């Protein structure tokens, strides 16, 4: 093989593998709400913090992470375009409320059920989580059971509306996960709810 041929073969290999050996970590704004997090990359006993939007660090074999630096859009596209293309849609949450101490959905919440069914229809491979919550009136064990009863009631309504129960996970958080913070033994309509998340 000629020298030029050898260089070409090496280049072809690099292109086929996507680049030199090592890691690249890039911090990006949330595509849905623009929020920016933070990450700490540790390698070979050294750590680098990523705090700015679009900052990246690289780790070569046996080396510490490089100082954070912007990563060009073209490189993001080339290395991550395929992953970004299959990013799942953001889960959508629905809140259903109940009349005091009852198993009855309010009229407004009942009207949300067809929208939940439609949302599932828009998502191939959808799954649902149905979590029942109560306010702090009464004792914790009774409320755990009441939360589950509410979640099961919503499940039954959604199954009656045509959804498959195999897609659903049903559980109760009882009075442990208040939407409206209150002391114990407090009636609060905002806490009597079932959260349905369509993923």
């Amino acid at each position, binding site marked *: 093989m000629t020298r030029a041929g050898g260089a070409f073969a090496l280049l072809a290999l690099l292109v086929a593998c996507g680049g030199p050996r090592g890691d690249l970590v890039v911090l990006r704004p949330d595509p849905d709400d623009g929020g920016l997090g933070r990450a700490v990359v*540790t390698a070979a006993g050294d750590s680098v913090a990523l705090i700015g939007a679009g900052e990246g660090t690289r780790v070569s074999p046996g080396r510490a992470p490089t100082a954070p630096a912007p990563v060009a859009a073209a490189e993001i596209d080339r290395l991550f375009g395929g992953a970004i293309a299959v990013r799942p849609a953001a889960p959508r949450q629905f809140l259903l409320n109940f009349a005091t101490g009852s198993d009855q959905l309010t009229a407004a919440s009942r009207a949300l059920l067809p929208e939940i069914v439609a949302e599932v229809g828009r998502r191939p491979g959808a799954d649902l989580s149905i979590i029942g919550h109560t306010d702090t009136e009464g004792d914790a064990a009774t409320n755990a059971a009441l939360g589950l009863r509410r979640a099961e009631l919503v499940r039954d309504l959604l199954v009656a509306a045509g959804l498959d129960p195999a897609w659903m996970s049903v559980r109760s958080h009882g009075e442990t996960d208040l939407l409206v913070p209150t002391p114990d033994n407090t009636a609060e309509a905002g806490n009597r709810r079932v959260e349905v998340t369509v993923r």
Partner: protein
Amino acid sequence: MLLGLLCAAPTAAQEVVGTVKSIAGPALVVRGGQSLQATLGMPVYASDTLRTGRNGGLGVTLRDDTRLALGADTELSVAHYAYAPAEASLGLTLRLIRGALSYLSGRIAKLAPGAVRVETPRSVIGVRGTHLLIRVEP
């Protein structure tokens, strides 16, 4: 019957941690030594390895709303998953062996900042939200 009981006992490996949401090209779920073709809506278990081939892609949403997307020639496993807010048990460790990962944080990261990390063969990434792109050339 005893065997049936033993098989029915839940283990960490049998816990459903997420669901396949999107697929492009060749994408596999490796479970107990078997390679299964990924399908939309397929459950993902804690011990599964996700693997894509050339031009492949795979999107998975975990139970806490964490969203993972794998590019081509990628291998990823969920090494640890705990999502039980009522028992204050929260944690997520992903292992990216090779390829490209888009990570979008869910509720575990929100409820327990510091409980999420991604390990590669040569680094450990502590994730405090929200969106990261990670590439591993082994």
